[in-house]
């Protein structure tokens, strides 16, 4: 998708180069239009504002004039300065326009808006309250990209965020996750969501480990970073270090982290043909998250391997039997690409900040 981003920027630059022509509209008018949309987004019907921005024939004109204004606020027109004064809303307006278009399978136009949002954010947001918005905006949108399997774009985007906020743990954690996904899925050997022996993905996993280690150095209590570092170390075949991290993560308060820590420990043990130990860890995972399918499948498979086939079926059957209400979703299912509901909620939180 990087091609989309490059294409989007090229499109804006091309347009901007000719924007002074009479046929393309007046920059002040464009700035006025955009300022109006930002105000509507902040205080009125945000969906209307998004639709108007997308549908306007002046959309690219608005983007061009605002990019220029963001780079040189002192030289900007009054309406452009007004829009800049509410910049989180302007950034979020373009962000949401991109989300809408991406949902309509119009990735090219989505990236035009996302690149505009980033350009505005990086050039113009300098105030402390705007920093608060950005610290939330980068990881929220990065997670959204990852949830749409856009790991390369998530990395590109989050790297910009980390450059601006080098000590921001959520951004570094999200960046590590994106590298972890790249490393996990880099192989041409994908048969399941679990990785195969690594070659090409090694560099990405090393990068992920670097970011997780950095996060833990700043805040050792961040158990998700510890869990992910343990998993990545296992994938890198640094078994002892992996076990140490996973065991520590296995004592976390969070059911989800504890479940995944035991699940990954079990996976490590199973791969080493340590079947009784694997069985024990799968059982501990199920204590943390009863009924989870990944752990149930793992436990059933370990039992089957141990010759306890009747018990394997008695573990597996209830775990996959359809029930009402449905069981809590297995956290492993959202481990790599995130939980879409959580991603939506984070974007809503950022939107609320932008509309304050």
């Amino acid at each position, binding site marked *: 998708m990087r091609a989309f981003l490059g294409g989007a920027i090229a499109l804006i630059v091309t347009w901007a180069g000719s924007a002074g022509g009479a046929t393309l509209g007046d920059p002040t008018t464009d700035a006025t239009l955009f300022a109006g949309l930002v105000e509507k987004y902040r205080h009125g019907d945000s969906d209307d504002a998004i639709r108007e921005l997308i549908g306007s024939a002046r959309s690219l004109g608005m983007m061009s004039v605002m990019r220029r204004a963001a780079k040189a606020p002192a030289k900007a027109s009054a309406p452009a300065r007004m829009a800049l004064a509410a910049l989180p809303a302007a950034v979020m307006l373009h962000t949401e326009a991109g989300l809408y278009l991406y949902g309509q399978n119009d990735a090219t136009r989505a990236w035009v808006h996302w690149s505009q949002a980033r350009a505005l954010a990086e050039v113009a947001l300098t105030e402390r309250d705007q920093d608060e918005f950005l610290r939330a905006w980068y990881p929220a949108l990065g997670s959204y990209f990852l949830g749409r399997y856009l790991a390369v774009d998530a990395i590109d985007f989050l790297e910009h965020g980390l450059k601006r906020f080098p000590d921001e743990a959520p951004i570094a954690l999200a960046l590590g996750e994106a590298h972890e996904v790249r490393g996990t899925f880099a192989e041409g050997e994908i048969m399941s969501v679990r990785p195969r022996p690594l070659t090409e993905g090694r560099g990405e996993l090393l990068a992920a480990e670097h970011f997780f280690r950095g996060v833990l150095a700043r805040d050792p209590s961040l158990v998700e970073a510890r869990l992910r570092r343990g998993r990545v170390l296992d994938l890198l075949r640094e078994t002892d270090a992996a076990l140490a991290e996973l065991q520590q993560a296995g004592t976390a308060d969070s059911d989800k982290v504890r479940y995944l820590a035991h699940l990954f420990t079990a996976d490590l043990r199973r791969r080493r043909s340590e079947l009784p130990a694997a069985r024990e860890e799968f059982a501990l995972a199920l204590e943390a998250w009863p009924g989870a399918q990944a752990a149930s499948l793992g436990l059933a498979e370990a039992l089957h391997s141990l010759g306890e*086939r009747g018990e394997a079926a008695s573990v597996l059957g209830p775990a996959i039997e359809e029930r009402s209400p449905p069981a809590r979703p297995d956290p492993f299912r959202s481990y790599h690409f995130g939980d879409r509901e959580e991603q939506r909620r984070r974007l809503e939180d950022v939107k609320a900040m932008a509309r304050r």
Partner: protein
Amino acid sequence: MQAVVLVLSLSAVASAQPPRARPPRFGSRVEVVKLSVLVRGSEGPILGLGPADFEVRDNGVAQQVERVESEELPLSVILALDVSGSMKGETLVEVKRAAHGLVEGLHPGDRGGLVTLASTLSLQPALGGDFGAIHARIDALEAEGGTSLMDGAFAAVALGDAAAGHVLAMVFTDGHENASWLREDDVLDAARRGEVVVYGVRIGGDGWGLCMGDGGVPVRDASAFLDLVTSATGGRLVKAASPERLRQAFLEILTEFRTRYLLRYTPRGVERPGWHRLEVRVKGRAAKVTVRKGYLRTP
């Protein structure tokens, strides 16, 4: 190819040991090997054979076939259907038609169960004799999510292992895999250990290349896996050229499975743990015997 079944004789063990809080560990088990065998001649399946007609070698050692059952034997059929997002539209319609046809082909005394595989597995109904419940479930199927083919194949094998009688697992997919927890090698080992015959039905193109599935998530063609798991258990993979051919493929498998024999013998003269290479022949006549290549026993 074939199905090997380990039958655990529990009653003798249970009476000889004191009660325990945990399930019995079957330390002193008597194991009977069950082999599902397809015998074909130039005119089609050869029926009416008895124990004396078969020659079975387990790791090269001749075995005494104790019992042979065939057409009269009730079947336990576990149908594992891919209902991932890629199945939407005409394919799902035809899969439902094929599945209904299969269930209509079951006899009184047979048992059926349905596992659906998407991002997660779902078992409904469990193996039993309520065919109406299976039809109702088939009608309600919707296609969405990823494909956990490895997990689905394992579930069919593991649940089948706990079922009585002659067990058929039929796994249908459009050939992509992207959501399983279990690894291919572990599932293949389970199939080799188990007693279930796995038949596969696949629709779509061949190949091992990566492609982009629903929502851009990478998926991998799994034809080779299906080939391996079906041949490991004595079944086979049927490739349907179009959705309209699925019903025929499903019925072809059921019909073929009913012509299989179920042989039982108690292994003698061979070490228990490890891989047991099997050779099965029909004495005194030209016949093609399809049976699993062997079976695996843990120490």
